[in-house]
C-alpha cells in the first residue's frame, strides 16, 4: 500500500541526490539492492533499490528507475527488510555472562517499586548480546528493567549500534515497567506476596502519584503554593498519569491481564500489555481497551504462569485486529536473549503468515513504540535501518547477511555461524 508513494518519490530524490554532496561526515552513503524489498507494512518491491543518504532513506524504487550515486557502497541481497524492531527486550542490561554483580543490571532487588530506575543508566551498548541481535537484523530495541519486580524500573529505546547509550538512544524514557503475577512475588515477609497485595501496592503508588501531580498543578497555578519536594519515583509515576509514558504491564494469566485493564481504567493511564500469554482468552476485552500487546517470544518456555501460552496467539491477536508486536523478552538463563527474527518466524508458520509476522517485528512494533515515522518501514524519509537476507528471512537456514543502521553497515553476516 505504500508502494505508490515510494515510486513517486524516486525521481524527486534523485534530483536532490544530484544537487547534493555525495559524501557526508554523519554516516556512510549506502545503496541497497534487493531481489525483493519488503517495506515492513505488507508492501513488496521486486528488484528494488533503496539509497541511504546521511542516515535517511533518500530514494527507493525499481532498480531501473534509481541511479545509484557514484562513491556509494552498494549492498545486494535476495531479500531486504526494514531493520527489525524489538518491542521489549533486556539486552544491554541483562548481560551475556549472567554474573550477578557484574553484568546483571536488569533487576534491582532492593524494593518492589522503583520506577525511578532509568534504563539509560544501566545500558551497556557493548554487551555481547547487543551485537548478537544486531547480527540478526535487529536495529531498534526497547530495552530496560526486567519484569521481575512489581515496578522494576524504566524502559528506553535504543538503536543497536553499540556506541553509547546517549548516542544510540532514540527515546531516553519510553515507559515504566510493571509486573502482575508470579514474577513480582517477593519471598518471606516482603510485599507483595500475593496478587491482591500487588494491586493494592500499585493503586497506592498511583494514588500517591495523583497527589503529587495535583500538588504540582496547584503550585504552577498559584505562586503562593510550593511545589512538592522532588521525588524521582513519583516523577516517573506522574509521567504515566499524565499520559506521557505508557505503563508497560507484564501479565501472563488472563486474570492478571484483567487486573491490568482494571487499573488502567481506574487511573486513566495508557497501557502496553506485555507478555500476555493468555491474551487469546481476553481478545474482546483487550480490543475494547484499545491497548496494544507486546507479545511474549513465541518460543518462550510454557511454564509457571505462562504454561498456557500458544504458538497461535499472535495469529489470534492479528485476526482480532489488536495492535501487537512480538518481543524477545527476558531470559534469566540459556539462551540469555531470544531473537525476534526467530520468534516471528515460528509465529509466521503457526497461523500468522509472512506479512503479519514481518510487520510484528517492524512496522507494528514501531507503532507501539510511537516511532512509526522513523523506523519499521522502508520509505523515503525513514531512518536508513535495513536488514539483508539471502532468502526468506524466516527460514531456519536463511542467513542475515547484513545489517545497516542509519546508513552504516554494522554487521555483514559474521554472527550467522
Amino acid at each position: 500500500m505504500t508502494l505508490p508513494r515510494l515510486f513517486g518519490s524516486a525521481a524527486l530524490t534523485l534530483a536532490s541526490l544530484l544537487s547534493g554532496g555525495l559524501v557526508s561526515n554523519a554516516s556512510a552513503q549506502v545503496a541497497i539492492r534487493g531481489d525483493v524489498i519488503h517495506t515492513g507494512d505488507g508492501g513488496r518491491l521486486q528488484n528494488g533499490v533503496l539509497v541511504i543518504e546521511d542516515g535517511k532513506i533518500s530514494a527507493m524504487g525499481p532498480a531501473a528507475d534509481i541511479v545509484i550515486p557514484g562513491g556509494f557502497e552498494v549492498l545486494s541481497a535476495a531479500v531486504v527488510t526494514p531493520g527489525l524492531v524489538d518491542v521489549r527486550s533486556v539486552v544491554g542490561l541483562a548481560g551475556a555472562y549472567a554474573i550477578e554483580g557484574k553484568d546483571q543490571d536488569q533487576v534491582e532487588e532492593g524494593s518492589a517499586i522503583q520506577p525511578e530506575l532509568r534504563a539509560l543508566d544501566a545500558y551497556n551498548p557493548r554487551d555481547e548480546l547487543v551485537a548478537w541481535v544486531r547480527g540478526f537484523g535487529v536495529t531498534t530495541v526497547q530495552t530496560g528493567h526486567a519484569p521481575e519486580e512489581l515496578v522494576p524500573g524504566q524502559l528506553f529505546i535504543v538503536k543497536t549500534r553499540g556506541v553509547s547509550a546517549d548516542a544510540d538512544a532514540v527515546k531516553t524514557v519510553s515507559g515504566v515497567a510493571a509486573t502482575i503475577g508470579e514474577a513480582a512475588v517477593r519471598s518471606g515477609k516482603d510485599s507483595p506476596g500475593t496478587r491482591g497485595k500487588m494491586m493494592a501496592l500499585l493503586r497506592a503508588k498511583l494514588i500517591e502519584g495523583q497527589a503529587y501531580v495535583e500538588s504540582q498543578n496547584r503550585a504552577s497555578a498559584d505562586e503562593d503554593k510550593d511545589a512538592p519536594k522532588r521525588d524521582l519515583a513519583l516523577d516517573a509515576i506522574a509521567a504515566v498519569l499524565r499520559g506521557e509514558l505508557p505503563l508497560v504491564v507484564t501479565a501472563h494469566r488472563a486474570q492478571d491481564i484483567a487486573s491490568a485493564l482494571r487499573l488502567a481504567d481506574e487511573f486513566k493511564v495508557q497501557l502496553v500489555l506485555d507478555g500476555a500469554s493468555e491474551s487469546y482468552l481476553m481478545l474482546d476485552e483487550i480490543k475494547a481497551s484499545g491497548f496494544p500487546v507486546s507479545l511474549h517470544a513465541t518460543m518462550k518456555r510454557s511454564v509457571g504462569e505462562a504454561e498456557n501460552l500458544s504458538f497461535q496467539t499472535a495469529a489470534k491477536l492479528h485476526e482480532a485486529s489488536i495492535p501487537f508486536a512480538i518481543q524477545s523478552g527476558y531470559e534469566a538463563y540459556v539462551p540469555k536473549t531470544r531473537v525476534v527474527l526467530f520468534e516471528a518466524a515460528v509465529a509466521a508458520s503457526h497461523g500468522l503468515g509472512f506479512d503479519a509476522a514481518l510487520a510484528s517485528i517492524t512496522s507494528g512494533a514501531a507503532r507501539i513504540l510511537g516511532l512509526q515515522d522513523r523506523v519499521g518501514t522502508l520509505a523515503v524519509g525513514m531512518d536508513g535501518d535495513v536488514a539483508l537476507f539471502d532468502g526468506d528471512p524466516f527460514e531456519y537456514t536463511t542467513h542475515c547477511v547484513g545489517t545497516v543502521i542509519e546508513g552504516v553497515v554494522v554487521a555483514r553476516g559474521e554472527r550467522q555461524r
Partner: protein
Amino acid sequence: MILPLLLSLAATAAPPLAQGPGAPGGPAGPAEPGATATTRAFVGARILPISGPEIETGVLVVSDGKIVSVTAGGAVPEGAEVIDAAGKTIMPGLVCTHSHLGGIGGADGSGPIQPDVRVSDSINVRDAGYMRALAGGLTALNVMPGSGHLLSGQTCYLKLRADASTIEDMFIRDADGAPTGGIKMANGTNPMRGGAFPGTRGRSAALVRQQFIAAQEYMAKIEAAGDDETKLPNRHIGMEALAEVLSGKRVVHHHTHRHDDILTVLRLAEEFHFRVVLHHVSEAWKVADEIAASGAACSIILVDSPGGKPEAIDVAFKTGGVLERAGVKVAFHTDDWITDSRLFLRMGALAVRAGMSREGALRALTLSGAEILELEDRIGSLEPGKDADFTILDGDPFSVYTKVLETWVEGEKRFDRGLPEHALYAEGGYGAAHDQEPYFCCFGLQAGGQ
C-alpha cells in the same frame, strides 16, 4: 518382548534399504504373503530412511510394531491397510539424547556424587511434556537428572509408547529385560556450588577420581572374593552403578561446556577407561581434533544466543558442522526445558545454516542419537526389522513452515495433529501443560534459588 519374532519377518520382506530407490520390487510387484490385520502401508511419501538415500516416492510397510519394508514403490502386502501419504515426508522418530521431561528429580543436595540415584524412580509418565515431545516427532528419549552435581544419577532410555501407566511401560529394555540407560556426570560451573560441593575445577576432578578409585577397590574386592560369598563386600548400590561404568556396561553422559573442561572429561575417561558421550560441548569447536582423536561422540545443543553463564559464552551454531568435518559422531539433544522438544527439527536446521551437511544433521536427529544410546539395532532409521517409530511431516524437515502431522511409536499412532486434543500439545493453549512439572536444570542456581 516383541524382538525375536520380527527379525524373521524382516527376512521375508522387501530388499534392504541400502539398495536404494529404484531397487527390485516395483509398483506392480505381487502382494507379499504374511500380512496381518495390523499391517499398514504408507504409500506415496518422500521417505528419509537415514540409513540410505532419500526415496522420492516410497512405500513404508509396518506390522506388529516393526518395520517390514521401505521401498521405492514396492509391494503392498495383501490385506494391509493402505494409508495415502502422497506429498508427505516420512522419517524415523527423532531420538533425543538428553532430555529432562517428566518432572524428574535426581540427586539431592546431600552431596556432589550420587550414583545410587535412578532418575527413573522420579518420573511422572503422564507429564504433558511427553505429548509435546511426540508433537515434535520424538519417539525415544534419554531422560537424565540435572547437571548441578558431578554425578547426579542413572539415566533411562524411554520410548513414548501408548498407554504408559508406569515407567516400566516406557523403558527400552536390553536383551536381558533390564531397563537401559547411562549415568549422568557434569563438570564446569554447574556443580561448583560450594559447601559439600566442589568450589573449583581442580576439586571437581579430584572428587571424581577419588570416587572412581573407590569403585575400583570395590570391584577388586568382588573379584578377589571369587566364589566365596563370605568375602564379598557389603552391597552398595552406588558402587554397583559405578562398577557398571568402569566395566564398560554403562556409558557416561557427561555435561561439559568449556574446552578445558571437555579435555578434563577425556582425561578422566582415559584414566578410568569408561565410555563417555560428551554433552552440550559449547566449545567443542575449539578442540574438535582432540575429541575426534578420543573417539568420543558428542551430543550437542544449539541455542538462540550465547551466554546465560560464562562457560556458554562461545556456544556456536557451527559446532555441528565443525565436529562433523573433524569426524566426530554428533547427535542433537533438546535438553528440554532448555529447548522445546516440539521444535527439535529446528536444531538440525540451525546446524545446517552454519555449515553442517543436511545428511549429517538429519542423522544427528535420529540414527546417530540411537548409536549414542547403543540402540541403533532397534531405532533411529527406517529399515526392515527395526521398531516402527516414525514421524510424518507436511514438508521438508528443515523448513520453518513444516509441521509434524503424525508420530508413530512401535506401529501405533501416538500423535495426530488432526485431533484437537493432540493439536493442543503441538500448538499450546489452555491446559497444554497439565501435569507438567518443569525442570530447570541449574536455572534455580542462576536465579539465586535452589
